[in-house]
């Protein structure tokens, strides 16, 4: 087994634990490279099937390429697809900086969707190496009745025994690729031939390393226009992945505040 095999095996184990122990589960599909890998891993874990609804919390501000990708692969992958809209900006915490406020719409949209469908668990493609606060996450990460993350008092998690039962009214975030890196995601995408949105590839000297809303996501300088070139670029770069995500950088604790409140 090589390193990618080991990561894949761990993720499959996590997804199967989630399916065995939780009743109403959904996958959050942000249309980016990470959640595409999660959907792919589901097909690996469940022998070609994705046995959970796939939820897109739509801010209405994604790139057209992302919507085209979504509509195509929701069909091709045979997904049980759900689209939910986010509430307007006015509904968010006005003390947050502007870009974080924009991102917070997603948190509210997610909470509304959870309430509407009664999901007990949500599978997300976040990774520890993306951001220092995400590095502290658990693989099975409980959220309290108000959807908040108690990051200062997380349950212990060891020996692959996850927290799989919960008090009523709470839900759990399941993070099957938490231990992967950006580079792992691309190497796996290349090995498996997972489809990719073309925005990730360099055009006119720039490419997107991370995809979010059009107005708060910016491309970074790059000439990487193939998977091989992206992998080579990441093996040498020291620019952080979320450099192009405005909401992370407005204030020192923006991201921490977003995540405590339930941001993914």
């Amino acid at each position: 087994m090589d390193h990618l095999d080991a990561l894949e095996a761990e993720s499959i184990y996590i997804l199967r634990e989630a399916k065995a122990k939780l009743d109403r589960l959904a996958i959050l599909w942000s249309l980016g490279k990470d959640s595409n890998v999660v959907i792919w891993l589901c097909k690996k874990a469940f022998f070609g099937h994705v046995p959970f609804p796939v939820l897109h919390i739509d801010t209405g501000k994604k790139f057209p390429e992302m919507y085209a990708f979504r509509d195509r692969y929701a069909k091709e992958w045979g997904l049980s697809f759900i689209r939910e809209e986010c509430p307007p900006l006015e509904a968010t915490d006005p003390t947050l900086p502007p870009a974080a406020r924009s991102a917070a719409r997603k948190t509210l949209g997610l909470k509304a969707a959870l309430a509407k469908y009664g999901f007990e668990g949500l599978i997300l493609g976040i990774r520890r190496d993306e951001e220092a606060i995400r590095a502290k996450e658990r693989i099975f990460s409980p959220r309290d009745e108000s959807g908040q993350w108690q990051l200062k008092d997380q349950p212990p998690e060891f020996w692959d025994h996850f927290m799989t039962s919960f008090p009523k009214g709470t839900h759990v975030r399941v993070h099957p690729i938490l231990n992967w890196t950006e580079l792992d995601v691309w190497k796996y995408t290349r090995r498996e031939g997972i489809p990719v949105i073309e925005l990730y590839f360099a055009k006119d000297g720039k490419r997107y390393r991370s995809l979010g809303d059009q107005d708060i996501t910016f491309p970074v300088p790059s000439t990487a226009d193939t998977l091989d070139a992206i992998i080579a670029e990441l093996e040498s770069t020291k620019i952080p992945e979320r450099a192009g995500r405005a909401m992370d950088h407005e204030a020192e604790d923006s991201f921490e505040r977003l995540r405590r409140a339930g941001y993914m």
Partner: protein
Amino acid sequence: MPHALAARPLPIVIVGHVDHGKSTFVGRLLYETGSLPEGKLEAVKASSERRGMPFEWAFVLDAMQSERDQGVTIDTTQIRFRSKLRPYLIIDAPGHKEFLKNMVTGAAKAEAALLVIDAQEGAQEQSRRHGYLLHLLGIREVAVLVNKMDLVGYSAERFGAVAEDFRAYLADLGVEPKAIVPISAREGDNLTRHSPRMPWYQGPSVLEVLDSFPYAALPVDRPLRMPVQDVYKFDQRRIIAGRLESGRLQVGDRVLFSPSNKTARIKTIEAWHVPEPPAEAVAGQSIGITLDEPIFVERGEIMSHESDPPLLTNVFKARIFWLGERPLVIGANYKLKLATTEATVVVEAIEKAIDTAELRPLPPEAIPRNAAGEVVLRSKRILALDEYRSNPRTGRFVLVEDFIPVGGGTISMEGYPDQRQLLTVRASNLTAVGHAVSRAARAARNGHKGGVLWFTGLSGAGKSTLALALERELFAKGYHVYVLDGDNIRGGLCRDLGFSPEDRAENIRRVGEVAALFADAGFIAISSFISPYRSDRQRAREAAGENFHEIYVKADLAVCEQRDPKGLYKRARKGEIKDFTGISAPYEPPENPELVVPTDELGLEDCIALLLRYVEEHFRL
């Protein structure tokens, strides 16, 4: 190490007492190896300035606002860096006592550990506690960093004193550190190269120590274990899913599921989006299989080869660490999670409770938060498991209370038998032949019912004395009665058995069956054996079917030891007899015996009178 794995980051945990400089060490190591992301150092420096705080290397790691405000790491985090040899995953664990659960969360993922100690303060409470926990978590590759050498004038003497003190503590745990390195994390001494400020130190730099840690090998050569995670019905295939925790598997292998004891052959190994269907699988892989027979298997069972199955038991010993806010106490129920199975267990005994900071014994009534200990756990149903030393993945477990994991433990079966042989029904093709003479007819002719008086109790409690006296009395009163004891059983029927826990269990199984035959023949069979295990007595009860009476011949261990009619206790105390009940092997007293005969309170006459009354009442027609 094979080249294919060279790209795998080695997970290393950094542990130690609060403020001894773990995060500072990691921050500086990242800087020294050129691993900080672009702009990170500048951003953190600017932020420190804004707050009017002096810059600390730890700030590049402590991500939470409250971590930076308080200068304390609250939860574990992970950082990657690369040496010339290979990539690393650095797990920074909090050193504050309050956050021990987070330390465990971080450390359990590691394959090696660096334990940081302040040269000024020397080893403190959490230094020792973390050392102990590393050991319990199964991390054997450990190095010690004696930090803040700049604050002790780079003194070789001070280093020697701190190093020797902690080396002695680790030796008590059975841990031999790979190296003890004097460093100054703040100044960067001895991290990636030898510091000119400590010419007296000839050992390796931290980076050299890291590069010398081996990868943990996947247990491919241990016996096959695949805990069943789930069973899926997809596209007309019934797929059993699970991860191979150890061993290897091939299509066509005959496999056994425990504890249900069902067998079948592997028909296919299923996989999606692979060039061709796999013919074999090895430890570490998450797989799916189909079987050649439609046997019923469910989540929680362990699949193995027939020749090397897991143990079956409903009681075991464990070394545990406790994180729960409420202490672990005798009689408490917890949810046990072991591989993919879950079961309710009760704490039957606490044999030891240990303050891990001082390696000091605590009163064995409870195991408080952040302490460790040795306990006996009993489950209502039979579990398939392994001893930790023979298979860590299926020999360790987590205890859960109120949804939260509160403890972890490793299993030992010392003094307890494997119940597999006793539970496996080999002669399943026999049909019982109905006797022409009924039990009732025999009882009518004898004037009393047949049955079993099952005496159980410690050696020296008076079982044989009572059994023989009772036999004499009952015989005189016209009862058909016979005593089964070591003298007439061990010499013949069980001549092939020794005194290991398994052999003792088999001995009792045979006595149970023979007693049942005597009872069926209309006799009162009095069996006089220590029979220390509840599960064995339960089987004897099931063999007898009806009219089984468990008689607890009760005397305190101290009383029995004082009586010591055969001098056995003395020899056991000297270690001359292994697995001696009450001394080096457990005695599980009956929970609901039909009768208790307290031989340390009543004289022989009174005991016999009590027994005679009981028999008259329950056996006479």
